[in-house]
């Protein structure tokens, strides 16, 4: 009986797995096929709108990751190591953007930093500075939506570090800072790297919050996803342009994933 059941179970798992695998692969096959069929794909990849969107996406997502590293690492470390009042609230707040639709993040940013927002209005009155329609707004949208992915990963990275080794370092006379960079960070590095990749990918893909909070303007706020949706909605690039842009993002994502696998693979063997 058990052998029957086991065999049936394995067949089920394999069949469902295959069905699912096909479902995952087909869209990308479709995208690549269509991109190769379109006669203008290579020309479109050189269009100035595409170049501007790619440049903007790359540098804004890099700034976002840098800011997430700078501000997120201490938060992750505190959450992993220090018990302070309200820790669970901070923890939940950091998870919030992960489960929230990015459009909600966009509306929230607008109500806070928009020209009628609770922070935006006084800032404009005092300094004349407005956030909307600027690249700053793009980075803010990306940071809100993407940084939690880094903080999550970094936190579990710091939690997995062997505290005993840190104590040994202290008893041998190493400073806290030296111990952090020589013991803690290297041990947590696979998780930190995974967090960086997730955060960067999420920032590259940000659409909803950017569209609502930052607007859509070539070279200033039109990142790759916004250029894709504009192309699909009839901008001069057209559907062929949307496909060409998607192809760029797909290959970039694949390249990053491969590099990530190689990097963490090496890290594991050490």
């Amino acid at each position, binding site marked *: 009986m058990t052998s029957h*059941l086991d065999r049936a179970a394995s067949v089920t798992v394999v069949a469902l797995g295959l069905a699912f695998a096909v479902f995952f692969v087909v869209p990308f096959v479709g995208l690549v096929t269509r991109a190769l069929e379109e006669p203008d794909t290579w020309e479109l990849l050189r269009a100035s709108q595409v170049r501007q969107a790619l440049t903007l996406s790359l540098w804004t997502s890099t700034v976002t990751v840098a800011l997430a590293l700078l501000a997120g690492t201490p938060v992750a470390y505190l959450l992993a190591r220090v018990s302070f009042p309200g820790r669970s609230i901070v923890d939940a707040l950091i998870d919030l953007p992960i489960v929230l639709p990015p459009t909600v993040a966009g509306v929230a940013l607008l109500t806070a930093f928009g020209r009628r927002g609770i922070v935006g209005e006084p800032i404009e009155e005092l300094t004349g500075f407005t956030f909307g329609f600027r690249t700053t707004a793009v980075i803010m949208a990306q940071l809100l939506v993407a940084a939690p992915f880094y903080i999550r990963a970094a936190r579990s990275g710091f939690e997995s570090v062997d505290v005993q080794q840190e104590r040994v370092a202290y008893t041998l006379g190493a400073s806290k800072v030296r111990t952090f960079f020589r013991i803690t960070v290297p041990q947590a590095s696979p998780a930190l790297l995974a967090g960086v990749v997730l955060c960067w990918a999420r920032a590259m893909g940000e659409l909803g919050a950017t569209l609502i909070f930052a607007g*859509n303007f070539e070279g200033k706020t039109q990142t790759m996803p916004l250029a894709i949706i504009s192309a699909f*909605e009839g901008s001069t690039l057209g559907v062929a342009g949307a496909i060409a842009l998607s192809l760029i993002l797909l290959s970039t994502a694949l390249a990053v994933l491969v590099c990530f696998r190689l990097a963490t693979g090496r890290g594991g063997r050490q």
Partner: protein
Amino acid sequence: MIKSQGFRWSLVPILLVVAFAFLLAACGSDDDDDAESTPASPASPAATTPASTTAAATSPTPVPVTGEVVVFAASSLTNAFKEAGTRFEEKNPKAKVTFNFAASSALATQINEGAPADVFASADANQMKNVTGKGNAAESVIFAANLPVVVVPKSGSPVASFSDLAKPGVRLVLAGPEVPVGKYAREILANASKPAGGISADFAGSVLANVKSNEANVRAVLTKVQLGEADAGIVYSTDAAIATADVKVIEIPAAFNIIAQYPIAALKGAKNGAAARAWVAFITGPEGQAILAQFGFRKP
């Protein structure tokens, strides 16, 4: 007992795969039902099909329509078409109108990419041409007209007149150049930059330098002005009319303005052709025209 249990278990993978396929296909099944129900209407399909357009347009009691009719319509038609849809369903209790509102340019792309639409109502002739040019609709009828206007937030905008749009530092938001209202806006600015009778030769250039965002459709432009994020935007007078609580209207001088013409067409790929033609007839007929007028649209 044991044997039969084992036998039943071995069916599980097949059942699950079938269920998976069924779930994936489930979205499409509604359309099939409607397509089947259409010929089952009281009138024979042969009689309904060629006659309905002319019959419905002239006679006050057209042939009852059944099934779902999917209408792709320009964003600016949102409120008027929703009202028209309610009335249409009241008249045809077996019919159901489903809308997809977006920029006409986005809708044209979707239709040409094979979206399951029965009717296309566009805010300009260009996007309709995109669809007829690809052979997805035979001919269209102009059913309404609309007037572009400048909208500004109720308070605090540096824009008080049309020519103020060129003032340095104005946060102007337009629809993208591919979106009908965005295209009209740019044509209006070009008209205002003509040497004969224009404001100044570089008017369009100075105004376009103030554009902070190319929004996806006319309602997105309106929202940005309502929120006060933008100092000004160009929308249709019908859009401004639904937001009078938040925005002020500045008329565009008639010498520069363009009257937007809205064409409508039943699509060739329509699954429910009879209902598609009935909707077009309803909108172009007296009742549809009255609803459009009520929402501020002009006669074509």
